[in-house]
């Protein structure tokens, strides 16, 4: 317990399960008045679930919450806000077709008999924006005209416009410039002084060490530790998040990649992919590091034909003639496979069975005159399912009921079903527990050992360092540098990932 200050929020043994996943397992958490309590953990560790429970968007399966000593179980977001609990979401969820002012006061528009008083709305909004340090934003323009970072600031301003005792900030700085982040930190200091408790979720360790009073680490739905921020270092937080250096072990034997399998030249798609060129060899794992939004996913999608390319050519093996890859079906025909970033939205057919999901891309090979040989289908799906060690109640179980790790293995099964030569894995282990993660790593090493080419996008730098032969670093759509194994350091990779941001941030502040 935090000595000398009042406990605002006290969570006791909170649990929450989704079908097939224990999102939170008996988590204790407390927040004192005037405190910034950081919540850290990998994706899928349970941070979002916990914050959604606190702000009333989800209800826990078990456990109890208390707010200033009284029982607290909000029936919904509005109920939570009435108690002074306000959350700023990671993704701006403003309504683009309404004005800034209307968005700020959406659920409490000044009105008379239902008719909105727009002048009053605008005037109040102007005060709110000024108080949040962004007086230059005009409250009467449409949200769709704002940049993402401005939208984020408006959301924060809107949260501050409510009387909040508890403020939850989920990755607030993800899309902010440095200057805007400083504004946010200033606001946080002001709120702290007023006795507001802040729950701060972020992946940026420097920020956490700087702004937080206490840090709670979640891993796979369980609380690992709560410690005072001064006693923590960045390295220690990372180790707590990842767990016992598990990922750092087993770097595998060094591979000796073969001839060039894929050559990309001058790939271009808007601002997200700028003149990207590289080569990847057979039997090589080529990693792609960078910040969120640095264009890694977009680069992969452009190579795979999922997005239209504005320019750029793709060469297979030692061919001097570029190959036209204008759609994913072209890419698959050329021996590529993509494991998409968002497996639930872009990969899985959730209500369908494991068999259905795995066999989807090999149906043509399993069919005679268009009729599927169901015995053969079952056998091939079973083979892949057991090769990948998919834990299910049988291959007829809907994938929606599987855990994240097993869902990802189903996706990998589909990727492997046609025996591709070039595999693009976008965030292959996001939100997956350590056990399944190790299995996926050893699968990737096996594939490289068989002479396949793997392009791996990951926001988990440790993962890339452990797995890759080379790591390409992207920043703001540009491929800044490719590190060979043994030449890289975390600092050098991070410096490359930030390189474009540093130059533009400076330019931005000069302009402002």
């Amino acid at each position, binding site marked *: 317990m935090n000595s000398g200050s009042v406990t605002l929020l006290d969570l006791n043994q909170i649990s929450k399960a989704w*079908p097939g996943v224990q999102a939170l397992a008996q988590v204790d958490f407390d927040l004192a008045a005037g405190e910034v309590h950081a919540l850290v953990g990998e994706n899928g560790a349970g941070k979002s679930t916990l914050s959604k429970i606190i702000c009333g968007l989800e209800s826990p399966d078990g456990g109890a919450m208390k707010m200033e000593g009284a029982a607290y179980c909000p029936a919904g977001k509005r109920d939570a806000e009435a108690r002074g609990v306000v959350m700023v979401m990671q993704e701006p969820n403003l309504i683009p077709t309404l004005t800034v002012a209307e968005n700020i006061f959406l659920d409490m528009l000044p009105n008379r008999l239902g008719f909105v008083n727009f002048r009053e709305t605008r005037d109040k909004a102007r005060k709110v924006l000024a108080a949040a340090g962004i007086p230059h934003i005009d409250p009467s323009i449409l949200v769709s005209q704002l940049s993402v970072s401005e939208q984020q600031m408006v959301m924060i301003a809107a949260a501050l416009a409510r009387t909040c005792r508890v403020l939850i900030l989920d990755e607030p700085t993800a899309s902010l410039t440095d200057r805007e982040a400083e504004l946010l930190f200033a606001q946080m200091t002001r709120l702290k002084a007023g006795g507001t408790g802040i729950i701060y979720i972020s992946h940026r360790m420097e920020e956490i060490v700087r702004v937080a009073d206490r840090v709670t680490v979640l891993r796979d739905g369980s609380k690992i530790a709560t410690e005072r921020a001064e006693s923590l270092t960045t390295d220690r937080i990372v180790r707590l998040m990842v767990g016992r250096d598990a990922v750092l072990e087993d770097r595998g034997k060094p591979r000796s990649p073969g001839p060039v399998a894929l050559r990309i030249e001058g790939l271009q798609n808007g601002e997200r992919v700028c003149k990207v060129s590289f080569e990847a060899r057979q039997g090589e794992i080529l990693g792609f590091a960078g910040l969120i939004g640095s264009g890694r996913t977009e680069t992969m999608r452009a190579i*795979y034909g*999922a997005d239209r390319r504005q320019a750029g050519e793709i060469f297979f093996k030692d061919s001097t003639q570029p190959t036209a890859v204008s*759609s*994913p*079906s072209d*890419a*698959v*025909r050329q021996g590529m*496979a*993509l494991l*998409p970033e968002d497996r639930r*939205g*872009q*990969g*899985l*057919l*959730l*209500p*369908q069975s494991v068999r*259905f999901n795995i066999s*989807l*891309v090999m*149906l*043509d090979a399993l*069919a005679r005159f*268009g*009729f*599927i040989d*169901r*015995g053969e289908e*079952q056998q091939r799906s079973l083979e892949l399912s057991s090769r990948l060690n998919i834990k299910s109640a049988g291959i*007829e179980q809907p994938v929606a*009921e599987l855990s994240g790790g097993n869902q990802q293995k189903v996706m990998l099964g*589909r990727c492997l079903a*046609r025996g591709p030569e070039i595999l693009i894995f976008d965030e292959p282990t996001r939100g997956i527990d350590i056990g399944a993660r190790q299995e996926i790593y050893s699968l990737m090493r096996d594939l490289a050992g068989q002479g396949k080419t793997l392009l791996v996008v990951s926001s988990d730098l440790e993962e890339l360092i452990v797995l890759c032969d080379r790591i390409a670093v992207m920043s703001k759509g540009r491929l800044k540098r490719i590190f060979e194994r043994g030449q890289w350091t975390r600092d050098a990779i991070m410096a490359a990932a930030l390189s474009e941001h540093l130059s533009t941030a400076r330019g931005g502040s000069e302009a402002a």
Partner: protein
Amino acid sequence: MSIKRSSGFLKTAIDYLGMIVALGALILFFSLRAENFLTRETFQNIANQIPSITMAAVGMTFVLMIGGIDLSVGSVLGLAGAVLGTLCLLHFPFALPVALAAALAVGLGCGLFNGLITVRWNMPSFIVTLGMMEIARGAAYIVTDSRTQYIGAPVGRIADASLAGLSLPFMIALAAVIAGQVVLSRTVFGRHLVAIGTNEEAVRLSGIDPRPIKRLVFMLSGLMAAIGAILHTARLQSADPNAGYGLELQAIAATVIGGTSLMGGRGSVIGAFLGVLIIAVLGTGLAQIGAQEPSKRVITGLVIVAAVLIDYYRRRSGKP
């Protein structure tokens, strides 16, 4: 493996059991209330009524499977019938085969139009087929000069032919149902439809191009409507530009009663056929117990809503 199969079969049978029980209950109810309901004539009458709506419902099931909708089937049926009738009346050599081929081509053409626009510009099929609904209906009036055209015997022969007491149109409709169900559950094409209806972006990223598949589905729906037009025209021995008015909504209702999801990814042709039977039995039975058209419509509407609610709760009870 055989255990798996049979449990799958049993599961399928249970899926239909609810509808079969409902159908039986309706027949029982009307048999007790109307003296003449449980007669050969009643069922022959129903068998005569349903072939064209059955064809439309088969096509509609395919469209709904991919998460689309086809509002134009009624009008396309009207237009294909109008073309059939008008060409038959020109009395040139081989008029009937040419007219039949033309009717089918019209159906395919309308479906192709729907498919091309929907897929190429990624438009909601609701809007595109709403447009086609007006286009085809207008064209049907133009072709027939807004008059019902009596054709007579040549085309009537199709409806008069019978096999084991069942008329040829009914047999054709039944064959379409069986073929449709086999395609949906046993072929690569059918599997792709389910996949597209479940998550089209996932299908695209897995390397299967959904576009030609979707175009084909709309063409199939148009073709089914055209076959429906032939069966309809044959029974009445005339081409009415108003033929098939409101058929699209009946077909959607039958399909949804049959357990097909409007969101795509889930459905059954056999279910749609049972839905057609339920609507037809309800309509005929209500008429026989003396219900007027307005009250018939109210009751049919309630049945549709009830069927969807039952489906919703049945599915939810399966979830944890």
